[in-house]
């Protein structure tokens, strides 16, 4: 297999992974609205909640993408690359730690379930760790 083909396959894998992640994320947000076991502050209206949450996620996602202008014209490539690498570390770390934390078989029985603030804190902390790791180690070959 040539290097170009391997790179093409890596890109395709990333496309598929991010596509699936987006689909599962939106599906999960909608599905979570139907969780009858959660305590609701307002009277539960599952379809409205699902619609609002999905619309908000799509809308805010587009706004952030537009405002951030993360492309070569607007971002400093070295900074952006270490930020992006750190973000990947952050997402994967948050995903696995949250899975372990919420699992009854692993950490949940001792720690209880994480709050949303703890998950956000975990996301920010792991992004920072990833950022500075790449900052020190570098992102070159």
């Amino acid at each position, binding site marked *: 297999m040539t290097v170009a083909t391997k790179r093409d396959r890596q890109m395709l894998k990333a496309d598929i992974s991010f596509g699936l992640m987006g689909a599962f994320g939106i599906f999960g947000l909608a599905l979570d609205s139907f969780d009858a076991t959660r305590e609701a502050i307002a009277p539960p209206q599952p379809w409205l909640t699902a619609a609002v949450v999905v619309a908000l996620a799509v809308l805010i996602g587009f706004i952030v993408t537009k405002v951030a202008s993360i492309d*070569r014209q607007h971002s*400093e*490539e*070295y*900074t952006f*690359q270490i930020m992006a690498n750190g973000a990947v570390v952050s997402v994967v770390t948050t995903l696995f730690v949250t899975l372990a934390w919420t699992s009854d078989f692993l950490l949940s029985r001792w720690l209880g379930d994480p709050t949303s603030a703890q998950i956000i804190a975990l996301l920010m902390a792991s992004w920072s760790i990833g950022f500075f790791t790449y900052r020190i*180690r*570098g*992102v*070159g*070959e």
Partner: protein
Amino acid sequence: MNNRLKVLRAERDWSQAELAGRLDVSRQAVNAIETGKHDPSLPLAFRISRLFNMPIEEIFDDKS
């Protein structure tokens, strides 16, 4: 990837900050490229090439 950026900069008596200004990147980016911690994008490699008036392959060497 090896490169001659530090040598070329020193020949012109430019600081990293001065080179960064000419390339429209951060000083940290210049430092990272010089120390092999970051490989520049193709547009940046072309900007470097034009600035030093040399072909890219005379500045960067991928046979490390």
